[in-house]
């Protein structure tokens, strides 16, 4: 019964989304105010119905209702409760429901926090979100219904892939989806602006906090995914340039570009068409990611079970959503005249360069991800594009980006003098250059140009950010939150680049054979194999080793790498023991028994690997601070003035052909 309620609630949610998608939009065009006013309550109703639907599926998982096919395929009664909850979105159907719920949630949030937004604009934004929801719910109900029942009810469900029975699955997908779907808000705002044919500073102020928050979720989601892969997969990698990872990276990079471009649109009324295009691009790439993950057109380690029929549905959906928005863009973009002119040396130019580099990065990731398919389409055989390619193309772009980043802080809007910038930046430039070359010499006593480059970029951006705050000459407590957000997020970027550089260059690994009582020394750490025992936990049996790690004779930690057997045609799993630290991780994976009380181990020393994710945490935190800046809350008080003045602005804009890159 409960699953049927869930199913029914989903159908109702679809109908509500249809109403939300059609009436307010049409009403806003033909001037029917009562149609327009449907938008907000509809968004709440949709959220409510989707929550019911979601809770019903959750109940089916928690009550081990194996009559529901999706539950039977992905969960069993032996699994711990947390993993039965997260199993809900561990496979295709349930993850779509989470997608839809998150979309409903964003819609309701926009409806709720919309006091300053004119009703017509709000109605259009919510309509677009409703239409996106229609697509996703139709997809679910037609091809991937999570509530489908089985005629023959199995006594026990299948084991969820042991890789997914993990805390990572509980947090990574919800975060990532919050980010992906959050970009639909910016997208909907862009569509509304295009229908309107107008884009002003107020619009940018509405769009900015929503974009920031979506970006924050995306940042956390990607970082969590990287961290999960690191501890889960057992070889200590944190980024593989897999198509599915790239699919999450592309919207993030575009989102980063969008955040910066929105700043220009708000403050200088420039980059308008460009901002709109980025809004469309960000969400389009989210959808493209969904398509790539679920259609099976690219081989990836972590794609969902693929199905060409589903692939075709998503492709048609993509065509409808992205295609129509780009058609609208093609016909409407010329209306967005940018007003604020600026000179070659100015903050606008700096941000333009930032945007160009970020978009070239996105294009590179997209090109690299799809190139095997392109080659194949022209029947020129099969090729692989992997980490060596992406590293060699993205790193130089990244270097350019970080160099620009430091200067960007000091650039003034509209027009600046190169000499002034030089006066402001010579100190951080010199200090970071000296640090970059001296630090490696005193610590590792060997010279590697890449180390110095990474350290230089990191310290340059950090110092530039800090000097900029100081140079504002205001008490740190009186600075707007957005300024702090920016400084913190950029220091996060610096931290990540330092982490990436150091762990890539200085990590060491060793495969060793150890008998109980023997030890091995790696990077100064002594790994002593103390004992091994067999333990039974929940739904697996494990061999658990105990390893004492010491540094200069002092015990650092006891590590417990395991090898788990989940039985029932599941592969054995290695559980790495990790001793995490601010400046280094120690990572031990247990291999095979080699007889004579000996086992094989893989030992890793990974310096500064945490900095990669701590940097992402700072980025996200900075993004949050910026999103909650006071000025976004002040905008409610904006006074409505006569329409006449608005026309005046249009006239001035005619004599000022602006940048519409």
């Amino acid at each position, binding site marked *: 019964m409960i699953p049927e309620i869930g199913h029914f609630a989903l159908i109702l949610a679809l109908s509500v989304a249809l109403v939300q998608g059609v009436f307010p939009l049409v009403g806003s065009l033909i001037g029917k105010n009562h149609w327009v006013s449907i938008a907000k309550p509809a968004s709440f109703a949709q959220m409510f119905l989707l929550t019911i639907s979601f809770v019903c599926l959750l109940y089916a998982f928690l009550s081990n209702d194996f009559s529901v096919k999706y539950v039977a395929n992905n969960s069993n009664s032996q699994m711990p409760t947390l993993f039965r909850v997260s199993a809900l979105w561990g496979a295709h159907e349930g993850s779509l429901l989470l997608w839809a719920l998150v979309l409903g949630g964003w819609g309701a949030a926009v409806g709720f926090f919309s006091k300053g937004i*004119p009703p*017509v*604009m709000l109605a259009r934004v919510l309509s677009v979100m409703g239409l996106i929801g229609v697509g996703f719910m139709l997809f679910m109900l037609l091809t991937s219904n999570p509530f489908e029942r089985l005629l023959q009810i199995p006594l026990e469900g299948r084991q969820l892939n042991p*890789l997914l029975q*993990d805390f990572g699955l509980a947090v990574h997908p919800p975060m990532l989806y919050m980010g992906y779907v959050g970009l639909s808000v910016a997208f909907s705002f862009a569509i509304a602006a295009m229908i309107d044919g*107008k884009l*002003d500073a107020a*619009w940018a102020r509405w769009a900015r906090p929503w974009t920031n928050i979506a970006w924050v979720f995306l940042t956390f989601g990607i970082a969590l995914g990287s961290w999960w892969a690191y*501890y*889960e*997969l*057992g070889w200590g*990698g944190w980024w593989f340039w897999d198509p599915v990872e790239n699919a999450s990276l592309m919207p993030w990079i575009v989102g980063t570009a969008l955040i910066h471009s929105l700043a220009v649109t708000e403050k200088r009324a420039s980059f308008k068409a460009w901002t709109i295009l980025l809004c469309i691009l960000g969400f389009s790439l989210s959808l493209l990611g969904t398509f790539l993950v679920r259609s099976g057109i690219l081989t*990836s380690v972590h794609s969902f079970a693929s199905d060409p029929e589903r692939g075709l549905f998503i492709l048609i959906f993509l065509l409808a959503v992205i295609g129509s928005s780009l058609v609208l863009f093609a016909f409407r973009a010329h209306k967005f005249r940018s007003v604020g*002119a600026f000179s*070659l040396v100015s903050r606008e*130019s700096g941000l*333009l*360069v930032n945007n*160009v580099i970020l978009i*070239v990065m996105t294009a590179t990731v997209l*090109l690299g991800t799809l*190139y095997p398919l*392109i080659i194949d389409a022209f029947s020129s*055989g*099969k*090729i*692989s594009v*992997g980490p*060596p390619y992406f590293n060699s193309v993205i790193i130089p*772009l990244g270097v350019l980006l970080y160099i620009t980043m430091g200067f960007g802080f000091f650039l003034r809007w*509209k027009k600046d003098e190169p000499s002034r910038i030089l006066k402001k930046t010579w100190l951080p430039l010199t200090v970071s250059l000296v640090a970059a070359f001296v630090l490696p010499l005193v610590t590792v006593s060997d010279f590697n140009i890449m180390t110095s480059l990474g350290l230089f970029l990191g310290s340059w951006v950090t110092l530039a950010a800090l000097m900029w705050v100081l140079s504002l000459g205001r008490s740190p407590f009186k600075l707007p939150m957005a300024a702090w957000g920016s400084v913190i997020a950029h220091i996060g970027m610096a931290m990540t680049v330092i982490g990436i550089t150091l762990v890539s260059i200085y990590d060491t690994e060793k*495969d*060793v*054979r150890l008998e109980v009582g023997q030890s091995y020394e790696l990077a100064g750490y002594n790994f002593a194999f103390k004992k091994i025992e067999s333990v039974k936990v929940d739904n697996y049996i494990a061999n658990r080793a105990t390893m004492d790690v010491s540094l200069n004779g002092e015990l650092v930690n006891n590590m417990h*790498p*395991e090898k788990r057997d989940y039985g029932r045609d599941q*592969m054995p*799993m*290695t559980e790495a023991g*990790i001793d995490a630290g*601010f400046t280094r991780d120690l990572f031990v*994976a247990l*291999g095979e028994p080699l007889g004579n009380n000996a086992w*094989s181990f893989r030992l890793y020393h990974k310096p500064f690997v*945490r900095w990669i994710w701590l940097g992402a*945490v700072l980025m996200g935190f900075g993004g*949050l601070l910026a999103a909650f800046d006071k000025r976004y809350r002040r905008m409610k008080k*904006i*006074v*409505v*003035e*006569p*329409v006449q*003045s608005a026309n005046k*602005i249009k006239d001035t804009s005619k004599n000022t*052909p*602006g*940048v519409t*890159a």
Partner: protein
Amino acid sequence: MKYLLRSLMISLLMSFSLSAIAVQIEFHTFENEQREKLYLDLIAELRCVKCQNQNLAESNAELATDMREKTYEMVVEGKSREDVVNYMTARYGDFVLYKPPFKSKTILLWVGPPLLLFLSLFMILRIVRKQSKQAPKQLSDDERDSVRSMLKSNSSSEK
């Protein structure tokens, strides 16, 4: 949100020991570090042709084990990086390389990004030059403020 952040911080720094796919551990000895590095580089850059996008180092597939073994043999025999790459591509084609070789069919892949970068930088240079030349007299701060308030009202006065 703060709670979320804190728990995120804690979990990022905490020692976690969680599950992973079984790693296959092999013992190899090398003449010197260069040889070892060559081997490690090669198994990281060669693809397990049977797998769903995994390199030789990461894969447990039997084929990957064989290919690793062959790579090791060749490295120990003193073969160069090129020899191993040629050996593998002769059998599996360019598909086996994670770093696609530079040839006519991969020209777009390698030249595309830098070309796009220079073209777009050139384009923005032109656009910025053009529009900054045509820029009208600069507005005073008062004027700018009035325009700003008009811009705001402009959007709020919609219908």
